[in-house]
């Protein structure tokens, strides 16, 4: 192995031939077998019909690909297996296909049909993976197929498939840029998507295909801002970068006032002399900026959308992903008002703890930022101190930052730090430190002399590199005040004997030449020495020798005439043409001849002109015209595909383009409402103080309206509650709620309250259980009675409901349709009174009076069904046949005698059809009368509404009363919190609905049901396997338990008994239930398929995925108890 790796050492060589390196491949059969033979046995394995052999072969092939060996001749054998059943073989075949399809286009076409089939698969994940592979095959012929597939997938029901479609767009674009226009249409469509899953991917596609079409973003801008926090981290980076560009084109510069000031300041900046004032200026500016921001803010008003972006990105500074943090930081740097940019410093400093590559990139960006906004990082100065263990490139960058941060208040500490760095063993770093000292010296006048002295001391350093670097830096410093420092120049002249580093020698020579009048005695001597060693010098030194000679000739021609001519003659025959040219040019200039008299007059002016001192400035200056955090910024060169960060516009473009009119996808009223709110939002959210609650509520409703998957439950402050409610069954929730509440209220040590609680719970559970069983038995008996008395054709014991149905059918046939409705109503009434608590007092409350709308409508359809076909059995219209669970709202101990229970009566709430009727049952166990029972201070999640129950004037001791209230839960299981008030007391209570109560039954025929179900596949379908309880295997109990868990109606299974009468699969019946959610009217379809031995499968189809998932849990619980 080691030998072979040594053999491979020629880097990057295409090493496909005869590389005997299979040591680690468990599958490598014969090391000595030839290529040809090896592939032969792979082919054989692939052709066999054993999956394990195929898998083995594919693994070996993939291992070959991974090593970069050519396996293309296996293409025909591999592509045959594209439809293999084994999932791992299939995946590996995909890997192979994507790798080699480009080379073998014709053969690759063989596989296309498999993927096309996959695109139609009912499983969303299979659809997605088919699209993924299909779009990865780079074969031009299939471009139309890909286009079609992408278009179709873009309107797929599953967000995951849509995400894959977004991923496929850039792939197709790179394959065939001609398709751009069509792809933009798809992008536009996907941009309107409101799920977080899609957002990141589609913006990525947008950036790759049409980054110039900024107009596509307008309508989606606010949505993207609001979704941002829930998008996966990689998507966040892409979106933030895009939004930065967008904001630069759409909003006004928030620093417009300050930037005027800045310009005034920067005028001075270019002059090195005025550092003092400049620094004061800087600080003053900081102060001014704030006051100016206060005072001058008036003319500039930040666009609310601009503010929205800043506010929604800020929490992402806390991301664990460095790329996200950097993206937010650059957004703030480029877009935020100066006073607010500071927030990013802390997060960036945090990133410095990460891997060295991350540090490298972050420090580059920090270096750029520190030039513009020094104050921001000043408090973190010490975080940039250098450790001896840092890699050199990190050290140099930290040094850069430290230098940028230096001002006269901290310069002494920084210089002390620098002193320790100079002793470092890492010489490159020492050199950089010396440079840094030089820059500090030029920027901060006060320390210039100190620095210079320090540097001169370094000239006696033992390390040549250090000395050389010092010379170069001193040269630059001396240029500022040469007359003061002739002794330093003298000292340096002596160094020419020892220093060998060309750059340093050149620097010394230049210095002596430039300031030869300060060292008139030494200069000619130096030239003499140099002339001696001229031929051995480096080019750069030679050039300076010529320079020195020329200058001396002009100032002191007596002493140096001969020397100069000697040097020029040497240079004339030098190997380097630069030097020859220079020599010729200088000779013409300084030595007057007849031909060139005109110029030599000006020779002195040319050579001895006063030269401005160099400005030592950071290499990071002005790098911020590149978008920070970008590759182009890092390289300080435009990378391919870089989008320029546009300048702020003079006047803001029309902000109304971002207003979203009622979009097509808003179907129901509640969504519309949310939408309106969203449009309004930026206006009131403008003020800073307004933060948490509104925002969270908004973002929640916003995403919630789109898809539950995106719902901001984890963001919202009340997240835990909503999350919780998703998890448990009703009873659990109740307990938790209570637990929490008591904890909050009592604020006692927990153990105490817990123990108390548990005992209470026990008690309650007990009570509830008995109640349920009681009412259950009652209901059963009741039904049986009825069926026996009213219908003669009662069949088996499991057909009560059917009997009921038939009875209804009969009624419908014989009487005008209005009558059965009435009858039904009556029955309903009766049932309630029987099913509810024994001491139920049938007061005339709203729920009983109205015409039972859903029942009547279902009956009408029922009748229609009858007239159309006889085969369809009359619907088994649901009846809330099972017990209504009642929940405790107020315990009689906490309520000081007042006990309140509530139940969901499952009646339409007449004043508002979108509300769930909640029946409250008050019992006064106290000795005194309770007066004026009413509700107050209702606290709701956004979108929810409550209609209060009418005030109960008087509840005498020992009496009971009922009242009905309506709550619009907005199809969520969020609790409605309110205060229940008596004359004397107030109790905080909350009602949280089990998910099953958020719907009302609808009637569907089996065919309708199947049709609707077909449209709610994929994401909207949740399937769960279960084993039915021994007691729960007959039709009756199943139906009963399902309808008890959720307010649904059974869909008649017509074909079961009537059409194919003799061989109904009696042991595998299918039960279907249907309902609609109360608020939005989304369909909820439940299917229970039973199999042998109690095995069963439960399927719930619902547009609202959260409701679907929770419902599955609840029904599962109900069926397996």
């Amino acid at each position, binding site marked *: 192995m080691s030998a072979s790796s040594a053999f*491979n050492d020629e*880097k990057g060589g295409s090493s496909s031939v005869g590389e005997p390196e299979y040591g680690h491949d468990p599958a490598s059969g014969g090391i000595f077998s030839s290529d040809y033979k090896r592939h032969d046995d792979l082919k054989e394995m692939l052709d066999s019909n054993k*999956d394990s052999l195929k898998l083995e072969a594919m*693994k070996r092939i*993939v*291992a070959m690909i*991974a*090593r*970069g060996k050519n396996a293309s001749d296996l293409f025909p054998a591999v592509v045959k297996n594209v439809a293999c059943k*084994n999932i*791992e073989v299939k*995946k*590996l075949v995909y*890997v192979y296909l994507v*790798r080699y399809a*480009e080379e073998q286009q014709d053969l690759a076409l063989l596989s296309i049909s498999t993927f096309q089939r996959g695109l139609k698969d009912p499983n969303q994940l*299979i659809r997605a993976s088919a699209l*993924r592979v299909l*779009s990865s095959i780079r074969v031009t012929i299939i471009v139309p197929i890909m286009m079609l597939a992408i278009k179709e997938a873009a309107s797929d029901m599953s967000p*995951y498939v849509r995400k*894959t479609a977004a*991923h496929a767009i*850039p792939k197709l674009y*790179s394959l065939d840029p001609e398709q751009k226009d069509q792809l933009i249409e798809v992008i536009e469509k996907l941009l309107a998507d409101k799920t977080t899953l899609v957002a990141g991917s589609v913006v990525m596609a947008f950036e790759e295909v049409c980054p110039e079409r900024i107009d596509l973003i307008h309508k989606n801008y606010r949505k993207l801002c609001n979704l941002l*926090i829930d998008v*996966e*981290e990689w998507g966040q*980076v892409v979106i933030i970068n895009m939004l930065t560009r967008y904001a630069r084109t759409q909003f006004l510069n928030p620093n417009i006032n300050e930037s005027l000031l800045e310009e005034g300041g920067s005028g001075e900046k270019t002059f090195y002399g005025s550092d003092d004032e400049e620094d004061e200026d800087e600080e003053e500016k900081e102060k001014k900026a704030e006051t100016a921001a206060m005072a001058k803010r008036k003319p500039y008003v930040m666009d609310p959308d601009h503010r929205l972006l800043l506010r929604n990105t800020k929490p992402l500074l*806390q991301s*664990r992903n*460095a*790329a996200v943090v950097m993206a937010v930081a650059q957004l703030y740097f480029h877009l935020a008002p100066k006073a607010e940019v500071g927030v990013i410093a802390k997060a960036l400093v945090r990133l410095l*703890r990460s*891997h060295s*590559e*991350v540090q490298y*990139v972050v420090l580059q960006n920090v270096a750029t930022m520190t030039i513009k906004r020094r104050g921001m990082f000043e408090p973190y100065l*010490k*975080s940039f101190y250098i*450790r*001896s263990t840092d890699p050199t*490139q990190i050290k140099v960058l930290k040094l850069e930052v430290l230098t940028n941060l230096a001002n006269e208040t901290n310069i002494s500490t920084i210089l002390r730090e620098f002193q320790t760095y100079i*002793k470092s*063993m890492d010489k490159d770093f020492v050199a950089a430190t010396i440079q840094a000292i030089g820059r500090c010296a030029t920027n901060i006048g006060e320390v210039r002399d100190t620095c210079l002295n320090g540097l001169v001391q370094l000239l006696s*350093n033992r390390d040549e590199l250090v000395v050389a670097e010092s010379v170069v830096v001193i040269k630059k410093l001396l240029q500022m005040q040469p007359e003061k420092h002739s002794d330093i120049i003298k000292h340096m002249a002596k160094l020419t004997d020892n220093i060998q580093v060309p750059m340093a020698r050149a620097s010394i020579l230049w210095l002596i030449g430039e300031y030869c009048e300060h060292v008139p005695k030494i200069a000619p001597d130096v030239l003499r020495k140099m002339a001696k060693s001229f031929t051995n010098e480096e080019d750069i030194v030679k050039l300076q020798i010529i320079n020195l000679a020329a200058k001396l000739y002009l100032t002191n021609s007596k002493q140096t005439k001969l020397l100069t001519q000697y040097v020029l003659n040497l240079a004339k025959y030098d190997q380097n043409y630069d030097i020859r040219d220079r020599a010729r040019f200088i000779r013409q200039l300084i030595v007057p001849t007849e031909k060139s008299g005109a110029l030599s007059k000006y020779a002195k002016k040319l050579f001895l002109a006063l030269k401005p001192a160099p400005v030592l400035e950071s290499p990071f200056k002005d790098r911020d015209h590149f978008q920070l955090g*970008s590759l182009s910024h890092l390289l300080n*060169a435009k*990378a*391919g*595909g*870089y989008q320029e960060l546009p300048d702020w516009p003079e006047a803001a473009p029309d902000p109304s383009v971002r207003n979203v009119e009622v979009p097509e996808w808003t179907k129901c009223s509640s969504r519309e409402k949310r939408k309106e709110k969203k449009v309004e939002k930026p206006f009131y959210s403008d003020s800073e103080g307004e933060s948490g609650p509104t925002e969270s509520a908004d973002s929640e409703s916003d995403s919630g309206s789109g898809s539950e*998957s995106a719902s901001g439950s984890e*963001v*919202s402050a009340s997240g*835990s509650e909503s*999350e919780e409610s*998703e*998890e*448990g069954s009703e009873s*659990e929730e109740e307990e938790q709620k209570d637990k929490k509440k008591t904890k909050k209220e009592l604020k006692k040590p927990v153990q105490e309250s817990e123990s108390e609680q548990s005992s209470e719970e026990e008690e309650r559970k007990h009570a509830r259980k008995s109640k349920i069983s009681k009412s259950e038995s009652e209901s059963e008996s009741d039904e049986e009675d009825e069926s026996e008395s009213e219908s003669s054709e009662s069949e088996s014991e499991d057909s009560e409901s059917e009997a009921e149905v038939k009875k209804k059918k009969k009624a419908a046939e014989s009487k005008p349709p209005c009558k059965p409705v009435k009858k039904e109503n009556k029955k309903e009434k009766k049932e309630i009174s029987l099913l509810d608590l024994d001491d139920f007092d049938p007061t005339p409350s709203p729920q009983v009076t109205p015409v039972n709308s859903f029942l009547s409508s279902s009956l009408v359809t029922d009748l229609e069904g009858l007239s159309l076909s006889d085969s369809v059995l009359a619907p088994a219209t649901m009846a809330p046949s099972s017990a209504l669970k009642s929940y405790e709202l107020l315990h009689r101990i906490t309520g000081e005698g007042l006990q309140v229970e509530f139940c969901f009566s499952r009646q339409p709430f007449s004043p508002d059809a979108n509300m769930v009727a909640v029946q409250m049952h008050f019992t006064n166990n106290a000795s005194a009368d309770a007066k004026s029972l009413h509700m107050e201070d209702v606290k709701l999640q956004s979108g929810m509404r409550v209609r209060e129950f009418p005030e109960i004037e008087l509840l005498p001791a020992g009496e009971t009363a009922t009242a009905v209230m309506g709550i619009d839960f907005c199809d969520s299981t969020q609790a409605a919190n309110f205060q229940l008030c008596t004359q004397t007391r107030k109790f905080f209570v909350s009602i949280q609905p089990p998910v099953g109560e958020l719907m009302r039954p609808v009637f569907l025929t089996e065919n309708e049901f199947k049709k609707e179900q077909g449209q709610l596949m994929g994401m909207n379908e949740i399937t769960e396997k279960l084993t039915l309880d021994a007691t729960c295997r007959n039709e009756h109990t199943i139906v009963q338990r399902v309808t008890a868990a959720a307010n649904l109606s059974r869909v008649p299974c017509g074909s079961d008994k009537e059409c194919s009468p003799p061989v109904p699969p009696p042991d595998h019946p299918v039960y279907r239930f249907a309902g609609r959610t109360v608020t939005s009217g989304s369909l909820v379809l439940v299917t229970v398929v039973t199999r042998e031995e109690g095995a069963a499968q439960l399927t719930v189809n619902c547009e609202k995925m959260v409701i679907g998932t929770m419902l599955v849990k609840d029904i599962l619980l109900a069926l397996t108890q």
Partner: protein
Amino acid sequence: MIHSLFLINASGDIFLEKHWKSVVSRSVCDYFFEAQERATEPENVPPVIPTPHHYLISVLRHRIYFVAVIQSEVPPLFVIEFLHRVVDTFQDYFGVCTEAAIKDNVVVVYELLEEMLDNGFPLATESNILKELIKPPTILRTMVNTITGSTNVGEQLPTGQLSVVPWRRTGVKYTNNEAYFDVVEEIDAIIDKSGSTITAEIQGVIDACVKLTGMPDLTLSFMNPRLLDDVSFHPCVRFKRWEAERILSFIPPDGNFRLLSYHVSSQNLVAIPVYVKHNITFREGSSQGRFDLTLGPKQTMGKAVESVLVSSQLPRGVLNTNLNPSQGTYTFDPVTKLLTWDVGKINPQKLPSLKGTMSLQAGASKPDENPTINIQFKIQQMAISGLKVNRLDMYGEKYKPFKGIKYMTKAGKFQVRT
């Protein structure tokens, strides 16, 4: 975005390549090797190298270079962060991320890379999702697979990607439900010659190992949350709740994960738990140098300082050392000039010391630099910042989990200048 990935080992072999778009020839790595030659140390290879047609972005982990080839503008951190995530995933899967481990599991590696990127854009990077897609290899499973021919690829399609909590697997079941939290704090400090602290800050993390059935919803609260100056969260943490109440509320991923990392800034006073007395001198003209080092505990709140390891890069002029440790063992590598002293536990009654002479190159002048001393140590059952977890509650599930919290303080980049 990411075009291709090359894995290069320390000796410069490309031992794995993977392309997401059309194939990029491995000769592109020549630019990388050039840069590698120019850099004196392996860690000094610039992370971003421009070439005429591509850009190479690389990270170095476990002596393997992960070189990504990209073609157009992309935030460099995006790629770097992703590459680190790839390494973390490998480590998670194979226990170690070495060349041998990658070569042994080349198929799994390939499958992972295939799932993590689609057309160069990250797709699934959550380890919980990946584990549902591709099961990590274990010895048992490898044996079973060879016998039965079954696969490492998950039979079921993962639903995690579709859920609201993409970081958590669905259908988690444990018989013992347990949740462990490790509060680990690292002290980064620079101590100057005279023993005074130049800079010191605390970097803390809370690593969790949560093995709970179902969908638990946890809340973790602190006694003194105000200490946490700057925090970054795992995506599962509800940010708004933290903002409002300073409580960590989250549905945890299954298994090990980093819940939170935080920073206690240098503005706060940081207790330094050890001190160093040192006397390292070289005399002019002599080929001998003196080395004298004593360690002692300070501000440890009565806890023992353990696993102490001292290392120092001695000047190039040092030929060899002749030292005498009062406890532990020391080694000196004459090639790299690295001195390490494994001290072990510090006994406050008898302070550990390392004394002796260094022999220098004859005739060479005395080195003008003094070595810095790096110290590593551990203190159990203490978080040096004083951070304390108040309580951990679970909602959403019925069972009672076993909860455990451990504190530890370690030295991070702890340097003493001499």
